Each structure stands twice: as structure tokens, then as C-alpha cells.
């Protein structure tokens, strides 16, 4: 393994993970370490199963091979009750926010508190307002989810994810589809929450600029394999052509612009047979 991540200090470790869906191998024998208190990012093009990885870590999907340990416990061998108590200590921010559409912002953030604790309503109110203040949306507490912009919805979801003061948070594409201001707000939030709450963050993203700005360590995956890893600085200076294409966003490179087809000239000159 890489020397910069010591397995002793990692909260989540993925070892020799293989996962297939149908006939396609989403992950092919990959190993990763996620260090405590750090932001670790997983990058790669769309459709490489980054969200799947988060679901595997959360125990919602089962791997074909390999193990995932969280806090030295094998997620996929836990009994249901144990898995659920582990999940109380994990937050997850879904790409859509996954807010419950029939409740307003306040009730959404209060939801995990009401489900898992027997706190009096006055204390729940204090906690909810604190969490909403942290994401800057204390004033939006009475809005319904369909009245929120995408960025606001994600911030509410983030407030909800930290409601139970988890030990780690998983972010699924937190920046996708956001305007620059929202992106900036989210970048700032993720970084500051990580530092002030001492969280371990796992972030899946393909937004190069934002990710490199806050991540402590980056894995680049493609085709089910890890094609590059290191600190943002190391990744930027990577000699791998593939990583370079991904980081700079070049249209052509190891990943071709054109979908595989037969030769262009041949194709044009072939008889005008209709398909």
C-alpha cells in the first residue's frame, strides 16, 4: 500500500473489493484506506460506480469478493441491529439530497433525532437550530423541500446528516449541477465541518477543481481499477496520461472522444445501404 496512508490510522478500509453487476465488473480487486479526520476523495468519470462504492461501504450492497472494515468491523458480517447502530454513526449526503418530501426543513433535520432518541421536543429544537445554523439555513426552517434550490437542499441534507454527530460522512457528488456560489458554499462547509467536528469524510466527485481544493488524499478510479492515488499535489503531477486527461479535462487522450466505430472514411464511402 502507499506509504502516506497507514492502515492503523484508517477508519474505513476496503480490501481486495470485487463487485459485479450483471456481467460487468464495477470494481476489480481494489483496495483503499480512508484515514481518520481527513477528507478522502474518490474521483473518476461518470458511470464508474462511485456511488456504488458508497453503498457498499454503507452496507446497502454486498460485494462479490473482498472486505470492507469500518472501525475494525466487517460491515457485511454485522447483524442487522449492529449494522443499524453503526449507520447511526455514519452520515450520508445523497446527490439529490434525499430529503423527505412530505416534511419541511425543520422536521427533516429533526427526523433522525426523533427516530433514534427520546429527547424532549425543546432539546430537539435547540439541536435542529444549531445544525441549521451551521449550514446557514436557520431562516429556511419552515420551507418545504420542493421550495429549496438544489444547493440549499444539499445543505439541509448535510445538516440532517450531522444531526446525530456521526464519526464520518459520505458525500455523493456534492458539487454536481451547482452554480459557482453554491459550490463555493459547499466546499467551505465540507472543509469546516470536517475540521470542527473532527469528521472523517469520504467524497465521491468528478469536479476536479473543488475536490483538489479540499481533499487530503485522492483515489482516481476508472474501469474498476485504481489508476492513480496520492495527495492532490501528487495527482496533479501524475505521469499517468489517463490521470492527466481527467484532471485537465482534455477532449481526447487515452479516453477517446469518439465512441468506437469503424473507420470514418470507409464508413462514408460504403454503399448507401439503409440501416
Amino acid at each position, binding site marked *: 500500500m502507499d506509504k502516506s496512508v497507514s492502515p492503523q490510522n484508517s477508519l474505513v478500509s476496503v480490501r481486495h473489493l470485487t463487485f459485479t453487476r450483471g456481467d460487468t465488473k464495477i470494481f476489480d480487486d481494489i483496495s483503499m484506506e480512508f484515514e481518520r479526520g481527513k477528507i478522502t476523495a474518490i474521483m473518476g468519470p461518470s458511470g464508474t460506480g462511485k456511488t456504488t462504492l458508497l453503498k457498499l461501504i*454503507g452496507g446497502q450492497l454486498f460485494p462479490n469478493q473482498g472486505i470492507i472494515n469500518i472501525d475494525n468491523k466487517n460491515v457485511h458480517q454485522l447483524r442487522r441491529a449492529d449494522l443499524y447502530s453503526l449507520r*447511526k454513526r*455514519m452520515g*450520508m449526503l445523497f446527490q439529490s439530497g*434525499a*430529503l423527505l*418530501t412530505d416534511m419541511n426543513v425543520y422536521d427533516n433535520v429533526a427526523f433522525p433525532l426523533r427516530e433514534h432518541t427520546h429527547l424532549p421536543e425543546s432539546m430537539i429544537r435547540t439541536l435542529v437550530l444549531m445544525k441549521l445554523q451551521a449550514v446557514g439555513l436557520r431562516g429556511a426552517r419552515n420551507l418545504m423541500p420542493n421550495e429549496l434550490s438544489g444547493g440549499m437542499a444539499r445543505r439541509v441534507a448535510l445538516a440532517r446528516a450531522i444531526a446525530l454527530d456521526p464519526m464520518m460522512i459520505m458525500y455523493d457528488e456534492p458539487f454536481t449541477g451547482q452554480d459557482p456560489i453554491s459550490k463555493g458554499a459547499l466546499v467551505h462547509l465540507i472543509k469546516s465541518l470536517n475540521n470542527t467536528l473532527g469528521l472523517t469524510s469520504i467524497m465521491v466527485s468528478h469536479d476536479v477543481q473543488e475536490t483538489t481544493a479540499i481533499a487530503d488524499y485522492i483515489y482516481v478510479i476508472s474501469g474498476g481499477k485504481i489508476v492513480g492515488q496520492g495527495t492532490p499535489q501528487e495527482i496533479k503531477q501524475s505521469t499517468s496520461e489517463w490521470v492527466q486527461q481527467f484532471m485537465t479535462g482534455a477532449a481526447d487522450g487515452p479516453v477517446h472522444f469518439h465512441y468506437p466505430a469503424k473507420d470514418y472514411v470507409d464508413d462514408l464511402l460504403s454503399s448507401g445501404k439503409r440501416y
Partner: protein
Amino acid sequence: MMIEFLQTLGKNTRASFTKLGRATFFLIQTVSGTASVLPRPRLLLKQMYSVGVLSFLIITISGLFVGMVLGLQGYYTLSDFGAEETLGVMVAASLVRELGPVVSALLFAGRAGSALTAEIGLMKATEQLSGMEMMAVDPIKRIISPRFLAGLLSMPLLAALFSAVGIIGGQLVGSGLLGVDEGAYWSQMQANIDFQDDIINGVLKSLVFGFVTSWIALFEGYDSVPTSEGVSRATTRTVVNSAFSILGLDFILTALMFGDD
């Protein structure tokens, strides 16, 4: 050609069996999840609102019209035999035994069942169910079971309302419009409608229909492909499958209940 046909047939058979298996497993989880709803009546109350109260109007209005039509048709048929006095029996028997449970269940499937499927399907598509799982909240217990229980409890109430309103509608037309003696309408009815055989059996029927319709609606939503197209397909399947199940089960239940009379 033949091989291909057999292959498709086999594939479809296998698919329907695995779906049936999933549905059964889902039902077991749902039913065992109802135990955790009981300490939280608020969850049930909220669903009784969207399942029961919102179906109230369509059920009562339909019941009234069905009863009025029965009053008209029954009168024309019975008066040929000089038996108008038995109009009450005819209206009440058809409503309490058949039309009440069956038509209200069909309406329920169209109104509440499709709404349940769409709601659950959209919750799945927008990752709300998945998100709940990640918050260590079991979506079956929190979302599915209360809705199931609400459907099961609402159905007999709705069917009873349908029948009651229908009988009154039949009376309005029969004695109000066509001149059947009001006393005869009610007394003939009371003499011939049996509490055990008719009322209780009607309620049992509607309980069965409520069970099956809620099961189908919730399962189709939970099992839907989480896209807008998948959800709309699932909604259609709910209505179609519920209608088939209600009518098929009605035949079986009628044969069992009223067969040896």
C-alpha cells in the same frame, strides 16, 4: 422460432416467480413491521388521512349513484312481477354482498392504491428510502407498514359507507321517486338481510380486498424501477393487478361464503 418462444416463456415464468417471491418476502416484512407502528399512532393517523379521508368523497358519491341506479333498475324489473316491495332487499343484498366491497375496492385501488405506488416509487427514485436506510431507519417499518395498516383499516369503513349511502340512495329513488312504500322497503330488507351471512361476510370481503390492494400498491411502488417511466408503469400495474385480484378473489370468496345456502 419454437425454441425462441419457449425461451421467452420460460424467462417470463421465472421472472414472475421471482417477483412473487419478492412480494411474499415484502409482505412478511411489512406485516411484522406493523407491530412497531402500534406504539406510534401518529404515523398511522397521517396515513389514514391520505388513504381514507381522501377516498371518502369518491366512495360516498359513487355509492349514492350506484344505489340510485339499483333503485331504478330494480324497480323496473321487480314491478313486472309485482314485487316492488322487495326492492329494499334487492338493493341492500346487492350492495352489502357484492357491490359495496367490490366497487369500493376498485375505486380504492384507483384512488389510493395508485397514489401509494406513485408515492413509494418516487421516494425510491429520489433516494428517500435509501437515505432512510442510511440513517438507520427501516423504511419498511417507517414508511410501508403504516400505509399498509391504514389501507387495511380504511377499506371496510369505506365499503360500509358505500353500502350505507347506496341503500339510502336506493330508498330515495325507490320510495321518493317511484312510490315504493317506505315501510316495506326497510322491513323487507330487515327481514331478509342476515347480519351474520350478509353484513359480516361483506366486511370480511372488504378486509381481504383492503389487504390485497394495499399489498399490491405498496409492493409495486417498492419494487418499481426508480425512474419516472418505471414509476408510471408501476402505477398502471397497481391498478390492473388490483382489479384482477379483487374480481378473482371476489368469485372465490363468494363461492366459499354464500355457496352452501
